[in-house]
């Protein structure tokens, strides 16, 4: 299997994603420069965290117009697998591959800390090594992680089982107190209807090794397992 990590000029988790994919779960991984307009034959494209083009405007708003994004939208529409983490998730909502939007945290501050998540859907390519209802601990680090979607959109997400991760407490309760950024329905990560594009605000690449807790490891292992033999 071959994975690609997109490098926007302001990406800063590109090295971390590369390290998790290449060194930790040992997938053949390459960087993809944002000025390129076509994709090689990747099985997985990762949009990493960071500040794509500075994000002085709305996060991901300029990334939407970068040459590589046209190719990625095309890749996704043809069934290619895309994972957006943090800024990558923001970019995926900007280009319309995922519904909803990520607005400023309700506390108006950047938040960096480990949070508990409950796995809502383990029947995806990205989460098969988790169990539904499992509680995992993964760090967040963002200013604009407050997921917004209207009621109709939310109903659709729920109906289609598109919600993958939700913020919760250590017992799995998804209450407002344990919602770090004000996200609708405590949503931390979602997947598209076709199940090939996932976005999440938490950073699994930051805890893919035992020394950091290790809960993020299984997300990358799930992907690797899906593509086993490719």
């Amino acid at each position, binding site marked *: 299997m071959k994975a690609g990590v997109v490098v926007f*000029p*302001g990406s*800063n*988790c590109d*090295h*971390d994603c590369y*390290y*998790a994919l290449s*060194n930790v779960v040992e997938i053949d991984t390459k960087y993809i420069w944002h000025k390129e307009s076509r994709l090689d034959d990747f099985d997985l494209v990762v949009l990493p*965290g*960071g*500040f794509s*083009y*500075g*994000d*002085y405007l709305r996060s991901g708003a300029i990334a939407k117009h970068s040459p590589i994004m046209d190719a990625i939208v095309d890749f996704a529409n043809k069934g290619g697998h895309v994972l957006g983490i943090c800024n990558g998730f923001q970019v995926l909502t900007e280009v319309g591959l995922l519904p909803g939007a990520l607005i400023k945290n309700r506390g108006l*501050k*950047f*938040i*960096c*800390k480990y949070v508990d998540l409950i796995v809502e859907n383990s029947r995806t390519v990205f989460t098969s090594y988790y169990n539904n209802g499992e509680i995992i601990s993964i*760090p967040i*680090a963002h*200013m604009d992680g407050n997921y917004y979607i209207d009621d109709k959109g939310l109903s659709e997400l729920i109906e289609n089982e598109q919600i993958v991760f939700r913020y919760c407490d250590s017992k799995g309760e998804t209450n407002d107190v344990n919602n770090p950024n004000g996200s609708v329905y405590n949503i931390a990560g979602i997947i598209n209807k076709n199940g090939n594009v996932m976005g999440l605000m938490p*950073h699994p*690449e*930051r805890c*893919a*090794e035992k*020394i*950091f807790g290790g809960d993020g490891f299984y997300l990358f292992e799930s992907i690797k397992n899906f593509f086993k033999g490719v």
Partner: protein
Amino acid sequence: MGIFEDFQYPDVDKNLAREMGLTEDEYDVAVKLLNRKPNYIELGIIAAMWSEHCSYKSSKKHLAKFPTEADWVVQGPGENAGIIEIDGDLCACFKVESHNHPSYIEPYQGAATGVGGILRDVFTMGARPVCAMNALRFGTMDNDETKYLLDGVVGGIAGYGNCFGVPTVGGEVYFHESYQKNPLVNAFALGLVEKDKIFYAKAEGHGNPIMYVGAKTGRDGIHGATMASEEFGEGSESKRPNVQIGDPFKEKLLLEACLELMQKDYVVGIQDMGAAGLSSSSFEMASKSGTGVLLDLDKVPVREQNMNPYEIMLSESQERMLLVAKKGFEDKVKEIFAKWDLDAEVIGEVTNDGYVRLRWKNEEVALLPARELADDAPVYDRQYAEPKEHKEITNYNVYENIPDPGNYAAILARMLSNPNIASKRWIYSQYDHMVQTNTIFLPGSDAALLRIKGSSKAIAVSSDCNSRYCYINPYVGGKVSVVESALNVAVTGARPRAISNCLNFGNPEKENIMWQFVRATDGMSDACRVLNTPVVSGNVSFYNETRSIGVLPTPTIVMVGVLDDIENRVPSFFTKRGSNILLIGDFNPKIEGSEYLYKIHGKLKGDVQDVDLELCSSVIDAMVEMASEKLILSAHDVSDGGLAVAVSEMCFKDNIGVQINIDKQIRTDELLFGECFPLVIAEVDDFSIGKIEEKLSSAGINYLNIGKTKGDAITILHNSKVIIDEKIALAKEVYMESIEELIK
């Protein structure tokens, strides 16, 4: 018509020199050096270069006493940052620097550009920054100004570091009324570089092109270095235009472009444009290499209309570098910068006549000798003396004046909620402290611990300064600050290796301030010598005074240490119940000069005890050795707030309680909250305790076995009588949420 008429530059005289910050004598020196009157542009450059901030004219003499060498030191003071070996050829490049004055005037941008400046100092040497830290000082939390400054400074550090992609892994924050109108913002950065890939600020090779790379030049920050060399008076807010504006995204591009360029063989030397911008960078490069430079200022990329040569030379616009390329490789350099959408322009060339020549549309507008201006700046041997009235402070008798108040649980709660001790979670959760996935010990630990990918070693970093001690006795305070930073590093199991320092003091033209400076640096030098931790980089910030009130003397120390095997790391929190608790070092706590005396009784008085540096050295050796043999479960350095606070802090992470007893004839408040150095609390299991006791005894280190981890309460007995028995949950809530409550 020449440019002097075009731009209507005024005539130069002593009054103008004074306005720019030069004394009459300094102006005379300049005239003598040039053998003529400088013109307006030249005078501006001289004033900036000879400002205290750039020239170290009051501190140079005293900085010379710092030890700066050891086998592992690759680069000591004098370059953009210091460098030490970490693992074979892999080196750490680091420095701490102040951005105090701008941060008071405009807290967000002041702090942000402080971070930007220190990051450039590190990557200009070829090192990729892997962590940042900061030491902050503010007035007390009971007023809106402090809250505004704290919020702005933290926001600025977060805004810059988070976007740039460097983890801000720790630091320190202290609140005291003397910083009310003069907050301190000291930014630290550390990067990794291979020994043969280090770049220096060289301008060598006659005819080699000088290239300007990075952001365009604007009018921001003109005369910032001069501003940082004066006291604040009324109307400091009007200096807001002197503060630079940061663009962390641009800095990130500059980092990537520079590091990509440095992989190639196109660069002779490189220097970032920091204080005094193009002036100091061009002079430093020429003077260090004994060459000269010729610059065509009209070729400098500018972002504002009608900028003139004076403004271009003195602008402190951010995210810019000056580099000397090999002749013929200009286009290759431009290609790399174009990839990252950055400007790279040839603006001049290296010459060999020892002069910095500036031209504007082919007209020579300034001609200054490079080495003389950079190296022969005026140096002062300022008078210093301990003020007579200081004896009132050191002669203060705590025991006669302050009765033991009892009610220890309530006092512990007040100590834990004191923002100087309380958790800094509100601050560090705004910093991305995990990006790059190396941060093993998160903020809140004694030291930050970073793994190194591809190596079994790890780097430990701690920033400390005991300004209370420095105020009462600057010599002891200087020592204690170094010792504390070394202990914080050593309790993780890492060997302290070298320091960077940032010396924040008041007006050096005053004898008492200079006395603080001289004695504090004496103490630091002695401690660094005994602990074998040389000074490899640093910066001095004087004139931290507003309306003639100086800040507490604040020599910030950042200690960098190396842990040989990351598997041997020792955390700062209790790991399990049933362990033994050892108190390592001479347990002889004193109330004088303590945080307890300051915060609970409102006094910053009494004489402080001297520190036994040899004992400190033995304790450090012991901690490192015991960690390498995996004998210690957790360890924590005892400092502000004394034993009771240190023990509580160890309980909080995993809600593991303690029951300890100390038999000692001493006031109970002094036992609980008094301070002494060196003192370490170590958690040890039954299997290891015999070995540890043997080791400590043979090293001549005193220790006490004071109890066990147990249950979920903090239970402390004095002479077998219970004096504190508190549920951890309650104490923890106070500790964790105090600053969040105060800032509301």
